[in-house]
């Protein structure tokens, strides 16, 4: 319902701005360019900062005013909105699988979209860490601790949340590393962790609220950036961040939606917007907002110092890429669905 409202609002806003933008100027460049960025859940603060900086940059180089509207939600849900017709000039989602789905289902961008920008179209990366109650009363250090009986774990639902899929895969990868590649053991660990989950929210922000404000759970599996933000927002005296010895390199990609920018005539601005993320000022903003920049020399050293050293594995190394991971783990009836059994024992 909220999604619908946001969509109609965005659509109406975009239509209105397109009208006002094209009206006063004839034949020249319109005075305002409006971009819609459809993003995932925890990027609200990042893109607020990026949008301001980009608008300034764009005005300096073209003299044109740039207005960027961003929409946030669970990554899978956002992808579906775009497939269903939400006019996104750019999508900045939690994982390549969701942009793949847009390419596959709506054909609004080519299947090879990920090769069009540097670093597999990922201007920033992040990873998955734990947030625990102050003093870490349950002594949680590693992924295997989440599977212990009596530990209550909060994570969103991997079916709807991109972050939750990274959470799941990080746990799986850690157990593989520990057992030297025992897939059955990895599956058992992930099953045990999800049996400890009392609430499955649909997106990362929902889980953060459940953990921080509703006081549910001993540990929140969270995006690194979201964990820092939660500490900043709710007070460092309430929570601690625990960094496991191994985690996954989460690569949230960005892409221009060709069919939309060509129809609206916004390709130049949309491409500049994404390229701005790769520029020195863009990388600096990224690090400031707790995302890991790919070019650390552009970022503020003080910001970089906040990132803990973790051994990070990639989805390509361990799972053979998103398409394979999606089919094996998250598709209808795949391993994640099999975790929940009709016995009703799954929750206790």
């Amino acid at each position, binding site marked *: 319902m909220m999604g619908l409202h946001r969509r109609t609002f965005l659509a109406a806003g975009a239509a209105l701005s397109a009208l006002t933008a094209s009206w006063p100027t004839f034949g020249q460049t319109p005075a305002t360019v409006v971009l819609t960025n459809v993003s995932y859940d925890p990027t609200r603060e990042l893109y607020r900062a990026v949008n301001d900086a980009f608008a300034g940059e764009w005005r300096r180089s073209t003299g044109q005013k740039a207005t960027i509207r961003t929409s946030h939600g669970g990554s899978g849900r956002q992808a579906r909105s775009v497939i269903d017709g939400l006019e996104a000039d750019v999508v900045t989602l939690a994982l390549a699988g969701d942009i793949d789905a847009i390419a596959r289902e709506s054909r609004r961008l080519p299947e090879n979209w990920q090769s069009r920008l540097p670093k597999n179209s990922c201007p920033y990366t992040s990873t998955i860490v734990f947030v625990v109650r102050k003093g870490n009363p349950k002594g949680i250090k590693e992924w295997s601790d989440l599977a212990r009986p009596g530990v209550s774990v909060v994570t969103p639902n991997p079916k709807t949340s991109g972050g939750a899929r990274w959470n799941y895969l990080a746990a799986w990868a850690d157990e593989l590393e520990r057992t030297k590649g025992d897939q059955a053991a990895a599956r058992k660990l992930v099953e045990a962790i999800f049996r400890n989950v009392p609430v*499955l929210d649909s997106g990362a922000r929902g889980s953060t609220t459940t953990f921080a404000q*509703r006081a549910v759970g001993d540990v929140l599996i969270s995006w690194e950036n979201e964990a820092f933000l939660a500490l900043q927002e709710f007070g460092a005296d309430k929570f601690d961040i625990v960094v496991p010895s191994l985690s996954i390199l989460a690569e949230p990609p960005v892409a221009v939606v060709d069919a939309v920018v060509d129809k609206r005539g916004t390709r130049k601005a949309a491409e500049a917007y994404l390229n701005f993320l790769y520029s020195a000022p863009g990388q600096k903003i990224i690090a400031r907002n707790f995302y890991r920049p790919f070019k650390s020399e552009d970022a503020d050293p003080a910001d970089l110092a906040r990132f803990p050293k973790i051994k990070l594995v990639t989805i390509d190394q361990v799972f053979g890429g998103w398409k394979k991971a999606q089919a094996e783990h998250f*598709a209808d009836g795949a391993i994640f669905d099999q975790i929940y059994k009709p016995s009703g024992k799954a929750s206790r």
Partner: protein
Amino acid sequence: MTVSKVTGQRFTFVRPSALPGFGITLGFATTYLSLIVLLPLVVLVWRASALGLDGIWKVATTPRVMAALEVSFMTSALAALLNAFFGTLVAWVLVRYDFPGRRLLDAAVDLPFALPTAVAGIALAALYAPNGWIGALFAPWGIKIAFTPLGIFIALVFIGLPFVVRTVQPVLQDFEREVEEASATLGATRLQTVFRVVLPALVPALVTGVALAFARAVGEYGSVIFIAGNIPFVSEIAPLLIVTRLEEFDYAGASAIAVVMLTISFVALLIINSVQALSRRRYEGA
């Protein structure tokens, strides 16, 4: 109408009205209903029909879907029944007693209609979470309300209450006090008056209210997801499963679950309606 029945007069309305315009209003009503109600349902069935009848059956009978349907229909039925009792009580108090703040209370009954369901869900979750005002009272006893089926039940009671109150209230208002007094002068005890005189007159309206509350509860999504916990096989409601399917780009599967829900609801409402017709006939015959 009820009044005429109570006093035992017969009033039948079999012949078409003397007023003109039957044809045009019938035409308008059918077109309107088709556009607003039937057309979306046709689209839904058409979407689901991509799977075929066995496909729909297969989706409906997976353990996960069965469990979600059970959660949805059980909690909705229980919430409607609780509302039947307390809704009638609220209506009774509002109609029969005058006290300071009555109008305010009367207006407050409609709030669950007006409140965006997501807001209701967040408020209820905050209240009934282990650290919320009410949840904290139960937490020491090991009773969890929010994020369990009990939380779903509470949300559904909340959204269903106005339906019962608003259907029972007018009937109660029209119900003449003299009938109760007559019952008393004829030697009936107070309980006999309530159960044999007042309640039978309320039953048709009450059944309608309960049916409406039930139907609304089955389809409720916004408020429930915030308080349910959404754990498969425990606290996952069928509408959430539909939304999850949509997010997996499985439109046919989502429509299939929707069609199954619709069928069950339709049958349930049909049964409720016939119960109502039966009780009305019995009451009128008495």
